[in-house]
Every structure is written in C-alpha cells, then in structure tokens.
C-alpha cells in the first residue's frame, strides 16, 4: 500500500510538468502582440518601432517559445508566476487572496453536499422506486440540470431580496466591524448554490452504489442469517457502497472550481472564480495562466488525498497500475 502511495506521489511531478506545458501552450496560442496588451493604447500609438522592440526585449518576447517556456518554468518553480497586469501585484498574491475567500465557500459546499447527498442517497436506496425515491431522484436530476448561475440568481431573488434574510453578495457587510457571523452569513448562499449540483450527483452515485451492494451475495447471506434489514445496510452495505463515493468526492474539486466561476460572479464574491473571470475580461494572461496552474495543482493534490483516503478505507487495495 505504501509503495502504491509513493508511486502516486512520484507521479505528481511528471503530471505537473505536463500541466505547465499545456498551460504555457495556451498562453503561446494567444493571438496578438503581448506588448500591445500590456501598454496603454494611446501610449502605444505614439511608440516608435524601436520603442516596441525594446519593450519586447525587456519582456523576453524575442526568444522562441520553448525558451520562453523554460524561463517561465524556472521562475514558476520558485513561486514566481509573474505579475498580474491588472492588479499590479504578483499573481501568486492575487490568487492567494482569492483562494482565501473561495475556500470557506467551497468547504461549505463540500460539507453540505456530502452530508445531504449521501444521506438522501441512502434514504433513496433503502426504498427504491417509492414516492420518496422519485422525489429525491427528481431533486437530484434537477440539481444536475439547472445551470448553477441561474439557480444562484433565483436564490438571491428569493432569499436575499424577497425574504430578506441573507446578504446579496460580497465577503462581508461593507463598513460593518468584522465578525465571524457576518462572514458566515455571506458564504451561506453561495455555498448552497455551489452545493446543489454536487448534492444531486452524489445522491445518485450513493443510491446506485448502495443498490448494487445490497444485491450482492454476501448481503443476501447476511440477511439469511437473520439480521434486520437496516442493520445489514449499515454494517455491511454502507462501507462498501461508500468506497466509490470517496473517489467521486475527490473528483469534485474541478467542478467546484468551475461552479465557483459562475456562482462567485453572481454573488459579487471576490474568490478565485471571479478573479479568473476578471482575468479573461481584461486579458490579463499572467493571471489567467497562474490561475489555471494553481487550480490544477490543487486538483492534483485533492486527487492524491482521495487516493490516500481510498487506500485507507479499503484495505483490499493492491493496485497494479498499468
């Protein structure tokens, strides 16, 4: 088991390298002269060819792309992802601040969706094809089918405006003294909006996984031994059924990041999603690239953690990877 984990950890490095290559390739794909993207258009119109050449030189743009990639990579390894053109701040700093805002929302979304998804999934699986199962299944499907941003808009309208119980957006109430309660009130709606889709898919996975396990031979045996149905489910079924769910959970992070892009925009919540949207809006390529890289690294780490959790949870695992 530990050898398997060691291999997984070592594998991270080539993966990371691949991630940076793809990341840089997108950057290189960008049409237009990066110099003109960085300099005020008015000023640019007054610059001579020599000025432009000098600016390109200064930014290292005269070198071939692979060389530029290596330069960028060597800096990136040292944690220097360059400067955000728009924020005038190191990309890393901008991203750190944004992540600091996003994390509470994502964690809330993860907790809510895990608890709700698995619980409802179990309820659904225990009484398959009953009324409650149909209701829950519809709920789950709707979660997967409603565009997240649209759900968020409806939440703002219904909860924040009509019912007037939670703030409409932002990280804190502007001007109010900082308090934990205020922060929590602000992450609640975005967290719920973000959780909805994940809840739906987790519910379906749990249900399917549990139903499958319930029909396995050893379950039948357990039942034949005279164990009460619920006990069977809890003792034998759940543990095995939840194994694949762990993997699913570990794989949620990318879609959480994706969801955050839309949800944070709607809630005017300055997390990583909104920052990325602004970066695309302003064509702030260093920020864009830094953001993609950092989210990719986080996903990589979370996958690793899911793997570790999986091996811990299931001692049977003796992976022979391809």
């Amino acid at each position: 088991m530990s050898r398997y984990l060691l291999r997984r950890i070592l594998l991270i490095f080539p993966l990371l390298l691949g991630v940076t290559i793809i990341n840089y390739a997108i950057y290189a794909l960008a049409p237009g002269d990066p110099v003109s993207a960085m300099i005020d258009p008015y000023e640019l119109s007054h610059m001579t060819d020599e000025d432009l050449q000098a600016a390109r030189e200064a930014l290292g743009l005269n070198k071939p792309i692979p060389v530029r990639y290596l330069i960028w990579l060597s800096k990136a390894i040292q944690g220097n992802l360059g400067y955000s053109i728009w924020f005038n701040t190191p990309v890393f700093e901008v991203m750190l601040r944004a992540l600091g805002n996003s994390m509470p929302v994502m964690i809330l979304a993860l907790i809510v969706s895990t608890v709700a998804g698995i619980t409802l999934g179990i309820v659904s699986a225990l009484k398959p094809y009953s009324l409650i199962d149909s209701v829950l299944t519809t709920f789950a499907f709707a979660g997967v089918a409603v565009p997240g941003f649209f759900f968020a808009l409806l939440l703002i309208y219904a909860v924040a405006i009509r019912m007037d119980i939670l703030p409409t957006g932002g990280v804190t109430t502007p001007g109010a003294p900082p308090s934990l309660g205020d922060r929590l009130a602000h992450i609640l709606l975005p967290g719920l909006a973000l959780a909805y889709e994940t809840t739906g898919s987790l519910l379906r996975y749990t249900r399917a996984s549990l139903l499958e396990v319930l029909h396995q031979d050893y379950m039948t045996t357990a039942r034949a031994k005279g164990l009460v149905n619920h006990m069977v489910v809890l003792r034998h079924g759940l543990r095995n059924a939840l194994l694949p769910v762990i993997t699913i959970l570990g794989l949620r992070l990318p879609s959480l990041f994706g969801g955050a892009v839309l949800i944070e925009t709607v809630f005017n919540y300055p997390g990583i999603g909104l920052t990325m949207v602004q970066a695309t809006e302003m064509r702030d390529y260093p920020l864009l690239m830094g953001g993609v890289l950092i989210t990719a690294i986080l996903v990589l780490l979370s996958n690793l953690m899911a793997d570790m959790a999986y091996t811990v949870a299931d001692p049977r695992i003796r992976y022979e990877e391809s």
Partner: protein
Amino acid sequence: MKRLASRTISRRQFLKGGALAAAGGLLAACAPAASPAPADAPAAESEPATASDRMGGTLVFGYPQKTSYQDLLAVEHNAGNRRYYLIGLTHNCLVNISTDYTQWIPELAESWEFDGNRAIFNLRQGVKWHDGEPFTSADVLFTFGRLIGHPNVRQWNGVRHFKGIVVGMTEFSEGEADEVIGLSAPDDHTFVFEMTNPYRAAFLEKLLNFAIMPKHLLGQIPEEQWGIDEQGQQGLKNTEYAKKQGIGTGPFRVTNYIPDQIVEYEPFDDYFGGKPQLDKLVFVPYTDQLAMAAAVEKGECHIAIRTPQSEYERFQTMDHVDIVLNHGPSAFAWYHNIRYVLADVRVRQGLSLALNRDQIAKDFFFGTVEGAKASLEYGDYGISPDAAQWFEYNPQRARQLLEEGGWDFDYTFRLGMSSLSPTYEPLYAILREMWDAVGVKTEFHIMAAEYTNILNNPPHDFDTLFSGYGWGLTPGGFIHNFTDPRWGPADEKGVAMIDELILLDDEAALREGALGLQEYASELQRHCVIAQVPGIHVVNKRVQNGDVVPVYGPRTHWIDWVNVHMSA
C-alpha cells in the same frame, strides 16, 4: 442646496461637455465606461447639518466595475480610468468645477490670475497631507514638473494635456530636457505656469485631470525606478504608496484597501475644508450589475452610481431611495475609421440618418436618456438646427446619401468591438436592424485579444468601433475627436477651428464658435453618436446632506464630502 424629493427625478440637462479623453474612454471598450468623478468640497460652501440629524455613520458607496482600480496612485484620471471614482476623496486638484460646469471652484489654489501667457496660482495655506506634512508649492512643482511628464513614466497619457501648452513640457517628456522650464514656484504658496499661448478656461480644464501628489513621499523613490521594470510593471505603482497609503490632502484617508473588494476611509481631521462628519466611508466595486441593484435595494449600499437602466422602473417604486438622473457629458458612439469604406462623408451622413435615436432611447435605455442631437454639446449654447439635422431619423435621405456616396450595398459593414457584451447586444441588434432597413448589411467584428493591435497598428483594419464618446467640456477637450490617429488622418479644418476657439474670451464669440464647431463636427460625422450614457444614480434616504449629483463625466464638485452623513 435642496435634497431631491422622493421619487422625483432631477434631469439636469446641462451637458456642458466633458474633457473625456477619447483614448481613456476607449480603453473601457465595448461597454463604454467613462466614469463619474468624486470630488471633495471645500467646506466654505456647504451649509451645516440641521440639528435633528445625527452626525456620523458609515456610508457605503457602490459603483459598477468589471475590474478594480489598480492602485491608489492617483496621478491622473481620465474617463475609463478606474481610479477616477476614488481620487477626489483622498486627493485635491488645484481647481475644481461645479457640477453644472458653470463655476470654477478653488481647491488647493485659493485664487488664480492670468497675465498674458502666464497662469499664476496662489496656493491655499495651512493645508496638510494625511501624514501631517505641510503642503507647499514644491508638491505642485513635483507633480507637474517631474511626475506627469517624466520620460520613464510611459504608461500615463496625461502629459498630452500639456505638451505644446506648457512651455518645455514636450522637451522634458521626450527626455531632451532635465526639467520643465515653463514651471516655477516663486515662493511656498505661489505657482506659475508659462504657457505657449494665452489660454484661459481651456487651461483650467486641463488641471481638473491632475491631483497634486506629495513630494515628500513619492520624491523618495528614485526616478530611475519609476518606469517599467523587468516584470512589465510600472515601478511607481509597485510601491507602498500606491498599494497601501494613498496619502493626499483630501477629506478622507485610506484605512484599508483590498484591490477589487473594498476601500475603507476615515475622515481626515486636518482637512482644510473641515473634518468630514461621516465616521467611515466605504467604496465597493460591483462586478455584477444585478448584485449592485440588489445591494441598493436591501440598503447594503447607500449610494450606487450608474445603476443599470433595466432596474430603473423598480427603483422608482421603492420608498427608501431617491433616483438622480444625471448623464454628464458623454455618449455612446461609433468611432468611424475614415481610411476605408467610410471615406465619403455622404456615406457617414447616411449611416447617421438611418438611426432612429429616440426609438433607441426608449427601447434600449428605458427612456432614461435622450438620443444624441449633435456631435458636440457644449455649454448652454444649445443645439444648432444645422447640427441637429444630421441626427434626425430620415431613412429615405439616408438611403439617398449612401447611394450618392457610392456605398457598396453588397459590402458587409463590420461593427468593431473588443468583445460582445451581453448587456449591450440588444442595442447593437436595434442599430443593425435600422441600418439593415436602408440596405446596409452589418456583421460583428469581435477583436478580442487583437483589439489593441488592430486599433493602434497599421493597417488599422476596422470599419467602425463602438465606444464611449466625450462631448468635451470645452472645445479644447473635443480636439481629440479630430486628431486621434486611430480614426484616420487628422481633420485640419476642425483643429484650426478649435485652436481659434480656445483662445476666445468673449461670450458671444464663444457661442458662435461653439455652434459653428458643432455644425461642422456633426456634418463631418467622423463619429456616429448614438445616445447619452445613462447616469442613473440611486441614493438611500438615510444619506443626509448629500447634495448628491453624481456625474457621469469628469471630476466635479458633486458630493459635499464634508457634510454628508447618515441618519439612523
């Protein structure tokens, strides 16, 4: 000054024009974002609060912005420049202008006089920077003589306001001289500009763009570090001053600044106009229009400027807010590139006459603005009928002019923009429909990442570009519409008219000149102006003594920052 009654709308149609630099406005691209400018008010003019009002409170001020102001270094502020909203709180200019553009208001200069080509400013005494240091003429000299025109500081375009206007500015900015010889500070409280011509109001107007910066702080940063470093960053912006302090002479000082999220201010005790009454002032940028509208509705945000026109009718039904309609001197326009298909003036005239601007104002802008009536609206002089005729809706004549001008009806006219904003798409759709009705086929030309390249570099391959458009506070501010190289060769006649006009002093002659310029620019149709940019500002009724007239335009004396406060 009286507060606006509830649910009534003040429609200030002064439109004296604004010195919106076309260049700045263009940066903001497709959703033409020029921006209103906060400015502080010397207390001398404001009435004290009534006794029943509770002083103090926290005022939350929201404005729409896709991205943040980048820093607190508020050297210059053009339309489209994010710092625009904030600078008047922390910094002062030498002079300011009243909201209706009729009166110059002393700020850091107590008074001024013109003597031939010389402009002499007597500076206010006893003014302090937020850190307690005294303000003197050395700060003014530093601002105009080092900062603005410094050859290392290539990213700012403010210097163009003074090139050829202040003696020696061109040479200094091009690195040919060590200092600007046309500037001098005879004593601690006097400052003199040597101008190339006897400019008057046109010169004062230029000063509106520049906040005076502290020499004792910025002067400590070596000038060779001001420019762009190897990271592509401007050295001056990469300083404690730009990122944290933002120390100025204005009524408020920065206590907390998180880019893109919030700027918090506290009142400055030693403000020369008196200590502001608010306990705290908070500026919040909203990336999403709906989020801002919702925050206003809930009272989370007390003054919101430039709210979306689509929410206008809803705000009207709310009891807790007042609406201020105030558009300022800017409009939406197509910037025609006259190098290619629009070379013939009749074609451009035809394109203009094909548009039903009143319909657009009603359908797209929810009736919150008026369709443009001239290429230049200047002062109280009104609109010349000769200018207005090019803004009438006349599809028959439009078609006729297009034919006479040799328009190729098989050509697909490319409507340029940096990206297609979903918010403005209906407006484009309406415009396209109207052009289609006279036989002009159109398509979108989304420039995306190549925007600046196409715009600035030959062959300038675009037909027309949608952007914000400045009407010009004075004819001097309008000159860019004739000279900007991006739209084709400069128009010599227009430039000559302006050159003559900006030296005029006589009211009658000025009026005649302004209307003449208006007629000329409208007939020329280098820019197809569509409608005023809506300025729909919403103010919570808890805001007291606000005298709020937010302006979508250049910096003015628009909120009485000293006396504004919140009621319980």
